[in-house]
């Protein structure tokens, strides 16, 4: 009798205690209409730039809803949701579906490059400026021309008094010691060209670390406006200052930053960090933007959404505020002539500015 009572109490105890579902949200529906409603809600609640992009999600959802049916195919449903992605005009925002092999079967993202000219030609750069033949003293972190390349730095063969730093991506690790070596080697140059053309981003902390070498004092650079809740007005600004690097090799002489439309995300972080500095000039083509921070999640049918959940509003050296998500025009606009393989017009213009 005593033993059976214990068994009964144990079963009750297990039954009562196994109630995590009470604390969880109800399981989501996977119907076409439910997935449509889920995605429009996620965009309305999470996306950080609806006002700047001029997107009224209520109106957009209302205009698409009549076309969503339970009978429509997966491709059609994806195509309908992709209209929302395209309306955001944001390279960070995407909708993706992977199959069991990890291959993407459906992808929707905004092509922010389309319509802009190529402004970087690897062959021209290697043959005339950074390759072993053209510039034997140029150094690199990783191998030039290979995927492990993290940074190229040294003196330009065209003018040995000018330094050159090429950062193809911020999606790499560069140690504090390596940065010290780079800037110590260029400290006596009369100017530095920082070439971030083709840099589509990566780690914004690394971008900021490098930017910190170009100032001697803390400088207000703008603010990041984060979405902090589901309400349409639930935003909070985080003001940002660029603090100088704790190094004796900070470089305060003229700097030319070379840009093109591929400059995006963390590369934009680098741009807005040095933009207010008096010693920095931007040369090249309009940048890509991507100033917001990104979040991701799953819809009920397994599609992955990516959305910008903030926007960085930068300040220029005259104190004016600038929305940066669609990039910004450089101080000096220069096109690359890819037919002339003997020179890079954008680097040549930067040399002129710094001489």
């Amino acid at each position: 009798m005593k033993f059976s009572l214990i068994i009964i109490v144990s079963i009750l105890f297990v039954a009562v205690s196994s109630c995590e579902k009470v604390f969880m949200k109800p399981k989501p529906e996977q119907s076409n209409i439910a997935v449509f409603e889920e995605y429009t809600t996620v965009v309305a609640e999470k996306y950080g730039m609806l006002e700047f992009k001029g997107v009224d999600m209520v109106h957009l959802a209302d205009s698409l809803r009549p076309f969503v049916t339970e009978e429509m195919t997966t491709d059609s449903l994806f195509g309908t949701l992709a209209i929302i992605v395209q309306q955001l005009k944001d390279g960070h925002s995407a909708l993706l579906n992977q199959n069991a092999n990890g291959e993407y079967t459906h992808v929707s993202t905004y092509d922010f490059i389309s319509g802009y000219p190529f402004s970087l030609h690897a062959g021209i750069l290697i043959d005339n400026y950074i390759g072993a033949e053209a510039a034997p003293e140029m150094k690199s972190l990783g191998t030039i021309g290979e995927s492990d390349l993290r940074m190229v730095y040294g003196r330009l063969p065209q003018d040995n008094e000018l330094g050159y730093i090429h950062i193809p991506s911020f999606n790499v690790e560069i140690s504090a010691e390596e940065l010290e070596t780079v800037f110590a080697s260029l400290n006596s140059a009369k100017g530095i060209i920082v070439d971030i053309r083709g840099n589509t981003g990566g780690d914004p902390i690394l971008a900021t670390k490098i930017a910190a070498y170009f100032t001697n004092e803390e400088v207000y650079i703008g603010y990041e406006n984060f979405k902090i809740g589901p309400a349409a007005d639930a935003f909070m600004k985080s003001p940002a200052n660029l603090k100088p690097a704790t190094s004796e090799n900070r470089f305060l002489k003229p700097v030319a930053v070379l840009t093109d439309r591929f400059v995006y995300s963390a590369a934009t972080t680098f741009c807005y960090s040095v933009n207010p500095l008096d010693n920095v000039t931007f040369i090249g083509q309009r940048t890509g933007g991507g100033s917001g921070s990104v979040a991701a999640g799953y819809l009920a049918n397994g599609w992955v959404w990516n959305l910008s959940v903030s926007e960085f509003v930068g300040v220029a050296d005259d104190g004016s505020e600038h929305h940066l998500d669609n990039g910004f025009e450089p101080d000096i606009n220069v096109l690359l002539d890819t037919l002339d393989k003997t020179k890079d017009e954008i680097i040549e213009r930067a040399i002129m500015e710094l001489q």
Partner: protein
Amino acid sequence: MRIKKEYSKPSSSNEETIFQSKFILMKHAIFSILLCSLTISGFSQDNVRRTVLKKSYIGLGGGLGAYQDAKFSNVPYSGISGSFTAGTSRESDSYYWSTNFNARYSSLKTNYHIGGGLNVNANYNFDYTRKLTENYQLGGKWSLMNVNFTNFSALGNNSTGIIFNSAVSVLGRYTRLLKEDVRVNFELALGLFSMAKEATSFAYSASQKVLEEGVFDFQNDATTSPLSLSYSSFEPIGIFNKIETNISVDYKKRWQFSYQWDLLNYRTVKSYPITFAAHTLSVRFNYISKTKTRLNKESNK
């Protein structure tokens, strides 16, 4: 009342409500600390002859883990889990205390879509209870450090989630001797409050407190690093819900078999909680199990 006077009077009804809530929470916190202190202060009372059962143990378990983070998806995930535990305990005629380390790994899958993630939980805790009657015990549990690490590689910037917390729970235990070598124990621990930090927020991979205070800064590790304990916050029951239940059977000197259910439900934004749960069947081996009897030199009487 004396405590309340030390605060300046709130200026609006909203602030007053918040103020009253904080005051009630503080009362709960002080009450809980007093409860623990009182039970601990009773440590050396009464019994002239004291019998203490000392155990040191290791254990292995397996079961089912469950997870949902409503900030990034309403899809629930679950999967097989495995756990390891090690600890030590002391039990006398009047008290029971133990210190325990536990680590658990859970694979997380769902039938909603392909792919999935994983959860690793590690925690180190102390618990202490006083015997109220022969069968009933009451006391507290301090989960000194509890870390929940989650990874969903397909989610890019949100692929990694980390929650740190240090929680205080009230702990009740019922024990009953079924046979000479068989004892059954029921435990329930209910979290009262916690210092907690979740590395992800409503919409980004930085803590909600950092974003709400407007202090996010790429040059400040305390605001960007998921491993930083800065910007932790005091979270009461209702926002930080922690429940642990345990049924165990002590068999002879060396063995214990148990079923345990752990729940952590935490929200930094209303209606968007993150929930972890685990059901674990485990077996524990007491590599030390010895009884010591001694005479107390001091008595309260």
